[in-house]
């Protein structure tokens, strides 16, 4: 038998070499003495979503004997101690995302580091008095503001805990992918071949692309992406409030140039996310600290964009609502005023939207920003990514328990259908909101004013959001 097996293996090796040669000019002409290591799942991209995906699979009982790899281009970061100052990159974590993170023990780490729960969200218009307040009846937390570094620290700890199953490759950028033919009827390798920048090769049964909105996996897989660059950049900074307060409200005001948001970090500090035109963003970064603080306060407090017409129309609508529904409009709280900005904490990054037409292909799945990119105005970006993880992990776990081939389109398509159904309407709604609120034109302002007031008065609609 060993003679026969040797013949079969030899033929197999030569054939897989032939397959690689035809895959493209990249494949070097050399005899493979040992086949590239084969993984069950490779996650490309070690950001919050990629790391969480690898960690979730690593902690799954049905993946106990599987081999998972996580590829991260950057170096390993040590998060032993959190610096006293807050990082300027924060995320709004929904309760659903918190549930996912606690399912594999990461949320405990986040809680032991630092986070800020918020109970209320007040959103209002700069061009009118219209306002909408979100809060849960049962005084539960609506969400949590967490620094991205804190999340990464928790994820790294949980990855270390399953290091026997999940191998993390730092400083490893994938430069090429070779896709297998879908109907495996010939002698070529059925796996995805990955070539790293340093020449190392990996093979995998399933490649998960979590490599951000400029995803290489998506491009190499030739998946079409519907994308649009907004004329906006987001300015982020860490701010110190004039006076200590309960600070459990997230504030967002829609200015004609874009929404400005104040997200609570502690009783005395908040994080700024100000989406505005590229020019204004550059100005904000360049101005001195005092002027910067003044701009922020003025953005939240000034009524310069109000017009009498809109104010009257809005007031009329409000009285109409209060006739029908006496408790229809909520109490308007006043946002805190800002005293200082952390030096060195100001930064800006360009904004855009994107949506991949397909999330999956044979042996490939996209999650997070690689699949969809949204405007930060709804604080949904990373939550959509965590939602992708929960769904994909569920299907992969069931597939593993059924002994299925992990890269099979059958269960990958179920993931795609579920997530696209959920994501498409939300992504479209965020895009519409962004455009609706980017104007001073009276009819549109009136529309959104009344719309916002009506939504605020209608509990069922608010609960859905």
């Amino acid at each position, binding site marked *: *038998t060993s003679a026969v097996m040797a013949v079969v293996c030899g033929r197999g090796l030569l054939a897989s070499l032939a397959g690689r040669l035809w895959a493209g000019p990249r494949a070097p002409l050399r005899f493979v003495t040992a086949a590239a290591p084969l993984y069950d799942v490779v996650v490309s991209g070690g950001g919050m979503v990629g790391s969480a995906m690898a960690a979730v699979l690593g902690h799954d009982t049905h993946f106990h004997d599987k081999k998972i790899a996580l590829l991260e281009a950057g170096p390993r970061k040590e998060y032993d101690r959190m610096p006293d100052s807050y990082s300027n990159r924060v995320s709004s974590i929904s309760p659903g995302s918190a549930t996912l993170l606690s399912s594999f023990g990461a949320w405990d780490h986040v809680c032991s580091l630092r986070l800020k729960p918020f109970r209320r969200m007040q959103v209002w218009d700069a061009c009118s008095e219209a306002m909408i307040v979100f809060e849960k009846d049962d005084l539960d937390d609506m969400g949590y503001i967490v620094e991205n570094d804190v999340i990464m620290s928790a994820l790294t700890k949980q990855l270390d805990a399953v290091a026997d199953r999940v191998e993390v490759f730092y400083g490893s950028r994938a430069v090429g992918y070779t896709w297998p033919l879908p109907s*495996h009827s010939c002698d070529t390798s059925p*796996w995805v071949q990955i070539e790293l920048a340093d020449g190392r090769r990996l093979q995998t049964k399933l490649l998960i692309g979590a490599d951000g909105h400029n995803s290489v996996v998506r491009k190499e897989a030739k998946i079409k992406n519907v994308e649009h660059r907004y004329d906006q950049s987001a300015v982020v900074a860490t701010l110190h409030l004039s006076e200590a307060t309960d600070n459990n409200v997230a504030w967002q005001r829609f200015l004609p140039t874009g929404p400005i948001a104040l997200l609570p970090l502690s009783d005395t500090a908040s994080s700024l996310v100000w989406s505005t035109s590229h020019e204004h963003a550059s100005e904000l970064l360049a101005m001195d600290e005092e002027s910067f603080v003044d701009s922020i306060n003025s953005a939240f407090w000034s009524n310069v964009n109000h017009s009498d017409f809109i104010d009257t129309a809005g007031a009329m609508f409000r009285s109409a609502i209060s006739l029908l529904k006496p408790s229809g409009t909520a109490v308007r709280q006043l946002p805190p005023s800002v005293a200082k900005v952390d030096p060195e904490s100001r930064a800006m990054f360009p904004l855009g939207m994107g949506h991949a037409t397909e999330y999956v292909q044979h042996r490939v799945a996209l999650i997070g920003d690689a699949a969809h990119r949204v405007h930060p105005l709804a604080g949904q970006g990373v939550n959509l990514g965590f939602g992708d993880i929960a769904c994909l992990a569920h299907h992969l776990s069931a597939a593993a*328990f*059924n002994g299925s081939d992990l890269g099979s389109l059958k269960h990958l398509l179920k993931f795609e259908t579920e997530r696209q159904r959920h994501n498409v309407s939300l992504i479209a709604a965020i895009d519409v909101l962004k455009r609706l609120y980017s104007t001073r034109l009276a009819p549109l302002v009136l529309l959104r004013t009344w719309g916002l007031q009506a939504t605020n008065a209608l509990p069922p609609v608010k609960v859905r959001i």
Partner: protein
Amino acid sequence: QLSLFRPTVKRLFSTSHSSVDSKEMKKFQLLAHKWWDEEGEYSALHSMNDIRVPFIRDTLLNMSSNYHLGNPLSGVKILDVGCGGGLLSEPLGRLGASVTGIDPLEDNIRTADQHKSFDPVLAKRIQYKSSSLEEIVEESMETFDVIVASEVVEHVADLEMFIKCCSQVLKPEGSLFITTINKTQLSYVLGIVVAEKIIGIVPEGTHEWEKFVPPKELERLLESNGFSVKTVNGMLYNPLSGSWSWMESTSVNYAVHAVKSGAWGQSSPTEALSEVESEHPSATAGTTV
């Protein structure tokens, strides 16, 4: 191992007491390379894995008290009779079982061997042999914990001998899983006319209604050859969604779980026929059978 070098001709005209039907082999010869195209001629068999693998897995888990994380069938020796291209052997191997797959058609075994060769874990766990069931009986007496004969008994020439051979290579109290097609008017209409001639989800000529096996007949043959039938469940294929589901009625497709009597020749007297309700029954503490 030696069988790989036996000329094919000899096997086609092998002993008259063989369960292998040479006409059947010719039918499958033509499609030996199409096994692994999930959207091709064998797509219905691929999607059948979605119910037959959990059925086998959960039945075995319910009977045993060991559970290996990540490898639910670890330590179980399975014989896959009529394994074809290995469509069922591979998932069982992935779940941790040691699988021996046999099929009389050499081309099928070649396809199966080649497909598993790229996965080192499967390559170790699964062994394929080009052979009929009778040919391995002598060297495999009471060797296997489980025999799986899925979509096979409707193709064998001598069903009773097939069952006797299963009993010989199965350990006492081992499990036998069979999926096959009932012999009814409905199975003729759906299984042959519609499936083969109208919508073509089964290659034409694959099945002969005369050879379909009614569940009562199968049960009778099993019970009179040392088996105790535990479960009989109807299966239904939905051609629109391409998926299988369980159903009460066994008029078209059905699955059977039977257990070979213990060493002292008695099967457990108090076991009632159980119905498999959901696709994911939890693994409970072992019950003796």
